[in-house]
Structure formats: structure tokens, C-alpha cells
């Protein structure tokens, strides 16, 4: 589904992504863990097309997408969520999700029919809100809901795109334990039906969701394997014990 080959990204003196090779198989959840500043977000931004790689290649469904724009990649079935919530703040939650649905329904050069009377559009958007438990907040302005709800909205928008590959950048970041557990159960439901590249700090979430785990430290993949392999890997334990509390 997704292949990352010898990917490089440098910021000034730092190699944020250093010769990374990685593959996400069809309907697999591939988690990336690693300490702060390891280059996880940089990696996802390159896959989504927001950052140009300094070297290497990104292949999606056997197509070289390394130089495609983010919008082009989105239309090919790549959706990302943002670690730092990035939505249209003055719009309602429903309108935000509508934008995501609109994005996948082909071009939006439609000048006449009001979106509010577009039942297919509205229903799909409501469905996505329902999935994350935000249906009661549909008419609230995105700028006025809680932080946790922002995070849920991020997920709803990514899901509403109905992507082939979902790129989730720390979806539980800033969520309380309850919301976090809820999100894990939502992802649990789509597990096996969707390919997901998941970045996550919450180890419980990672170990309950992932099929494959890769460990990124200082821009390099230091280990990659099944849960058990990763759990047993002494290098990973060292890196984790050394880098994070």
C-alpha cells in the first residue's frame, strides 16, 4: 500500500528523517513510536506531501507520489490528521466535516445547490460525527468546543475522507484517559478494514491497535517488527528508558 524508500529530511544541521525505509501493508495498522523530536511528524508530513523530501521516494499503491501536491495525494486516498489540531475554526463541526466529505466527492465546482440541502453530503458528514461521538455538537462552532472535542473532530474529518490509507499523528494527544479509550475503541472497530500509519505516544493504545511497530529515534528506524518483537527488543527499551520519563 505505502512504501517509503530511503527517505531523508534535513532542517539546518539536524537530520529529522534519516534514511527511513518503511512499508504499510493493506489493512494493516503500522505504528511508529519514538521520543519527542524523533522526526515522526516530519515523516508523516512528507508522506502527506506538505514537506518535500531531500532524498528518497514515497510510493503509494505502486505509484511514485514523491512530488505530488498534498491535494493530489488526498484525492488518491491518503488522509492525515494533525498532531496540533488544524480545522476551520469559525465553521461549525458539521461544516468542517462536510468539507472533508466534499473533498472526496469529486470536484467542488458546483455553484448552485446549497450544501445544506445536499442530503448525501450532510448524511455522510453526520455519520462521521456520530462515529466519534460528536453528533450533539454538530452545530457548535469549532473554535468554541473543548480541546478533546477538537481532537475528535480531527479524526472525524480524516475518517470522512474515506481514505485508503489513514495517517494519524498522535490522535490521542491532549485527550483525557476516557476520550482516549473511546478513540482506541473507534480505531479498534475499523482495524482490519483500513490501512493506518499511526503515530502514538500512548503505549497502551499502540500495543492494543498495531500489527507492526517501528521505532524512530533521531530520524532513524532502530527497530521494526511485531508487538512481541518490539516488546522484547532491548535496544528499544534502552532508547525509551533513556529518552522519555
Amino acid at each position: 500500500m505505502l512504501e517509503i524508500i530511503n527517505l531523508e529530511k534535513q532542517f539546518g544541521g539536524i537530520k529529522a528523517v534519516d534514511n527511513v525505509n518503511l512499508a504499510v501493508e493493506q489493512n494493516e495498522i503500522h505504528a511508529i513510536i519514538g521520543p519527542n523530536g524523533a522526526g515522526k511528524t516530519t515523516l508523516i508530513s512528507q508522506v502527506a506531501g506538505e514537506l518535500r523530501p531531500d532524498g528518497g521516494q514515497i510510493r503509494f499503491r505502486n505509484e511514485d507520489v514523491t512530488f505530488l501536491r498534498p491535494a493530489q495525494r488526498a484525492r488518491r486516498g491518503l488522509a492525515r490528521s494533525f498532531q496540533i489540531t488544524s480545522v476551520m475554526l469559525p465553521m461549525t463541526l458539521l461544516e468542517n466535516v462536510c468539507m472533508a466529505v466534499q473533498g472526496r466527492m469529486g470536484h467542488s465546482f458546483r455553484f448552485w445547490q446549497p450544501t445544506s440541502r445536499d442530503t448525501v453530503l450532510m448524511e455522510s458528514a453526520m455519520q462521521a460525527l456520530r462515529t466519534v461521538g460528536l453528533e450533539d455538537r454538530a452545530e457548535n462552532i469549532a473554535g468554541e468546543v473543548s480541546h478533546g472535542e477538537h481532537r475528535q473532530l480531527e479524526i472525524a474529518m480524516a475518517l470522512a475522507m474515506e481514505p485508503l490509507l489513514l495517517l494519524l499523528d498522535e490522535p490521542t494527544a491532549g485527550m483525557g484517559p476516557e476520550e482516549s479509550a473511546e478513540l482506541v475503541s473507534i480505531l479498534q472497530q475499523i482495524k482490519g478494514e483500513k490501512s493506518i500509519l499511526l503515530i502514538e505516544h500512548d503505549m497502551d493504545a499502540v500495543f492494543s491497535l498495531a500489527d507492526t511497530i517501528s521505532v524512530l529515534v533521531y530520524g532513524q528506524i532502530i527497530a521494526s517488527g511485531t508487538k512481541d518483537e518490539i516488546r522484547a527488543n532491548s535496544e528499544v527499551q534502552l532508547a525509551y528508558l533513556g529518552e522519555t520519563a
Partner: protein
Amino acid sequence: MKDYLPSTLSGIAYTGVIILLAVMPVITSALGQGFYLDIFSRIMILSIAALSLNLLIGYGGMISLGHAAFLGIGAYCVGIPVYYEIYNGWIHLGLAIVASGIFALVTGAISLRTKGVYFIMITLAFAQMVYFTFVSLEEYGGDDGLVIVLRSEFGNWLDLESAVVLYYVIFFVLLLTLFFINKLVKARFGRVIVGSKYNERRMQSLGFDTYRYRLVCYVISGILCGIAGVFLGNFTSFISPEMMGWTRSGELIFMVVFGGTGTLFGPIMGAGIFILLEEWLSAITIYWQLIFGAILIAVVLFGRGGIHGLLTRSKRR
């Protein structure tokens, strides 16, 4: 979405304004104030221009400081054919649509590659280029402008030489523009334009090539303003490069901000109050622009959202 639907108070005010505009010729003739018919014709023409600019500024977040160029292009699409004794109004209108559309497409394609203050500067630069082009066209009067001896002819049944007929034609075009923009901003296209104003990066990650949507929006806006220009040319019967100078573009921005950016009806209120104030204040004192500036500052500071903001604020806490 709620922001764009008039709440009750503003809704009533706007309906009132439309009704007032509809019966204005009756009122002015009853009061023997034919002069005011002209004023309101001008208000409506500039309302159309301001509505089109609001599509860029208010809904799209694209602050253009060169919008008067389209007014000028539209007006010269009447003036130049008339100079060659081509009076057919449909030709004028067609020319204006094509010319302003092409100008918007070319300049928009370049300007929209930039953001923020650069976009402002580049739209200004393009407008100045048009301005100086017409200044240098000696054949069409250059600096001194061009007199339009006869107004556009749309057939025997529609005689624009009559001030009342011209008034109602403009009124009709204004209603059409209002209706069209209302449809546009609520349709998928408009939602993408508004979404891109709020968070362009996110819109791109949702699969929208925001540049293309903005370019189409820019062309639509330019054409609408070009059409307003056709009526401005007909109305003033005299056109000159001065009508597309950058201060004219600035005035259009005034009107949009005055009325309330990104609201459907705001630009009409803005244009109306702008021109009425200009009319009344300039009769009182030659320093009217000083008072005018102070009023604008007050509306922007305290009105927060212009006239529309004032009308809806009490409802919104």
C-alpha cells in the same frame, strides 16, 4: 454558515432597503428630487462592484486593491464601441464579460501565487498598469477620458436614455447579483472558498487545489465587477482612467468593510452609506473626508463587522 444568514433585525433592515430601492423612482419624482434618483443609481452600481469585491475579500480572504480596474474595463467596453458607433448593448455587455474575464484570469493566475501583503501589492500593480494603459491611449481621450454620446441599446423596448428605465435595469442586475452570490456562497464552491480563507493548508490536505478554486472565484468576481462597469459607463456618460485609479479601488474596500465583510448584504449598505455620506458631508464642508475617515474608524472599531455587525450585535450577546 449562520454568519451569512441575516438574523431578524438585519433581515428586516435589508428587506426594507430592497423595497425602498424598488420604489425610489416614485418617491423621488413625488418629491421632485430627481437628483436622488441619480444618487441611488450610482449606489446600486457601486453595490454590484462592492458585492463582487466582497466575494474576494469577505468570503475568500483575498484582499485585492485593484478591483476598480474591472469597473474601468467594463466602462471602456461601452465607451470604445460607442466611439466607433457600435451602440448594441449586448455587444457591450459581451465585450465587458470577455475582457474582464480574461483580465481576471491572467492577473489572477499570477497574483494568487502570492499571499497577504504581496497579493495586495500585485493586484494594485496590475490595476495601475491598466490605468496607465488607458491614459496612454490618446485615441480614446487619454487622460481626459471619453464622452459616451449615446447609451447602450438593448432594443426598442428598453430605452436606457430614460433615467428611470436605467435605474430599474440596474436594480434588476443588482437583484440578480445578490441572488447569484447568495447561491454561490452556499453551494459547494462557496464553501471551499470560505474554508480556504480559514485554513488553506487543511483544505489542501482534504484534497482541494485551493489555487484553482480561488482563481475561478477571482474570475467570477472580476466579471461581475466588469458588468457593473458597463452600467457605470452608461450612467455617467463620461469615462476616464480616473475611475480605475487605486483610490477608487480603496473606496470599494471601504464599502465592503463599512457594510460588513463576508456578509451577503453588507456591501450594499456600505455602498449606500458611503455615497450618501460623501454627498451630504461634501455639501457641508470641504474637509468632509476628515469627518468621513473618523466615521469609518468608528464603524470599524465599535461596529466590529461593519453595519451588519451593528445590526446583529445586540442578538449575539
